[in-house]
């Protein structure tokens, strides 16, 4: 996750006037980004509506119809558009639910990390002194350890359960928000509007919540779009290894891990969930990159 975050370390916050003055045309999306955005909308809709779209229950087994191929094969059977898995469960239904689970986890994880990191970043910038030192030491510490290893260790020590897993998703990447927010807030605090608001006697909550935070939101949102694919990859990697989401619940990574045993006879069991993961992360990265160049022209 360091690869993407390091090269946009601290884009300077721009005054709101400059942003508003940009012609509307600058927001027109290139074709590739439009496709990416369309895919993201589609995947989100699928994830939202998944329980309504599934033709079967995702855990409904039918041992008479195991490992049936998808519609393009002459051996496919009616009613199972994408065929069935090793237990005769409908692949389409599982794919829909798995997309919902993986996306929801990634979204919740990203939001938890963003809120936690932003809060600690503001706290470090506001208090300074030893609070700042401790927060930055934690940031350095987390940046120094590969998070996958930390996550694996915590899962080994504490055992796996859903809420712990969710907490781990949230802890992944908080340090990038903390570092970014801290540097943004430190420079925003010295700007005219912040000095004026403070001089008028605003309490810290009002100063940061109502005035500074909305002004530094741009880079933070970009960071969100860049962190989201990384959280998806963390969840799917752990689930792929069989150490993340546990059956009967399913996720895209877990489906891929299961399907890997049938590569020779039923490759689609692994390739379809993998394709959904790749398309989602790719679209999000393209969209995030585009958003970054929009919000910060020096990156172009």
């Amino acid at each position, binding site marked *: 996750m360091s690869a993407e975050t*390091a090269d946009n370390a601290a884009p300077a916050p721009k005054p709101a006037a400059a942003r508003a003055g940009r012609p509307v045309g600058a927001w027109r999306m290139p074709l590739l980004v439009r496709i990416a955005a369309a895919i993201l909308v589609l995947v989100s809709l699928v994830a939202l509506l998944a329980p309504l779209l599934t033709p079967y229950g995702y855990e409904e087994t039918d041992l008479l119809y195991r490992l049936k191929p998808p519609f393009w094969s002459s051996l496919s059977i009616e009613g199972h558009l994408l065929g069935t898995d090793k237990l005769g469960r409908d692949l389409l239904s599982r794919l829909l639910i798995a997309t919902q689970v993986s996306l929801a986890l990634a979204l919740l994880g990203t939001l938890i990390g963003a809120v936690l990191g932003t809060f600690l970043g503001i706290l470090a910038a506001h208090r300074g002194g030893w609070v700042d030192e401790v927060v930055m030491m934690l940031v350095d510490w987390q940046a120094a350890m*590969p998070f996958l290893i930390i996550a694996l*260790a915590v899962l080994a020590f504490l055992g796996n359960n859903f809420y712990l897993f969710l907490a781990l998703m949230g802890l992944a990447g908080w340090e990038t928000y903390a570092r970014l927010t801290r540097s943004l807030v430190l420079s925003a605090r010295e700007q005219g509007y912040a000095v004026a608001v403070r001089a008028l006697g605003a309490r810290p909550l009002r100063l940061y919540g109502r005035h500074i935070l909305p002004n530094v939101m741009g880079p933070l949102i970009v960071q969100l779009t860049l962190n989201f694919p990384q959280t998806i990859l963390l969840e799917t990697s752990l689930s792929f290894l069989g150490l993340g989401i546990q059956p009967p619940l399913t996720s895209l990574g877990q489906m891929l891990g299961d399907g890997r045993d049938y590569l020779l006879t039923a490759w689609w069991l692994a390739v379809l969930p993998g394709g959904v993961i790749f398309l989602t992360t790719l679209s999000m990265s393209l969209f995030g990159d585009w958003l970054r160049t929009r919000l910060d022209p020096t990156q172009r």
Partner: protein
Amino acid sequence: MNLRYAAIKLLRAMITLWLVVTFVFVVLRLTGDPTQQLLPDDIGPEIRDYYRAAWGLDRPLWEQYLRYFEAALRGDFGISFRNSQPAIDLIWQRVPKTLELGLATFFCSLALGIPLGVLAAVWRDSWVDRLTMSFAVFGFSMPNFFLGILLILLFALNLRVLPSSGYGTWQHMVMPVFTLATAFAGAIARFTRSAMLEVLSRDYMRTAEAEGASRFRQVWWHAFPNAAIPVVTIVGFSLGGMIGGAVVTENVFAWPGVGRLLTSSVADRDLSIVQGIVVLVAITMVSANLLVDLAYGWLDPRVRVGGQERSR
């Protein structure tokens, strides 16, 4: 000055390592009584007490901590309860195999990523540039377990030119190295490109051109050494991602390295092995960051004179 810079970096590295060992100790003690996890449920309290005493669990917490720390310094993380050997021995057996994979990936990524990044910057907006940036985005978004599985499907199952998994010949290395190097080379190419773009716009590049230096000499003699500093940083940064990637990749290709040992130990909750690997990874990361910091000071004299920098 130079010595002070190195000393500060070394001190920070030590603090990070100490934090990791402390973190492991705290989390382990938070999980409750190890005798409950390791011993069968149906034994009497006197046997439980015997083991508690034998493992030092009846001592005050600070004494346990000191003992733990002292043992960790000696590389003693206890016995693997799965096959009753010292955890550290089991880990060391796997290290060379992971190193083999890691070093091959490292050199392939640098050999591919740096020239691509430099060319992309020199011929900005050309097809080379576009190809490089697409490659970087692809590497960043592609989960390595999925890339690995696609490679197995194509080269092992359909074309039948490479072994699908395992360890032994150089053919076994091709797919794991390719899988790991894709993301790493993409990141390196991207950073080399942006670092080069920055350097190429400097005044001294115009001077070099005015002096009549050839384009080749301008790029590789004047520009590249100046762009090398951010590239060294990102190489150090990417190591963490590469270690995480290696864990997954070793599992995809049944590569008998530390990563596979870690995942199987996590599944079995073989805690002494997990602790050992966490500390080993921490030592690797801290040493790598230390090397990067020192290389940074060596490549750019301004850093060691300017003292300590806060954010990287």
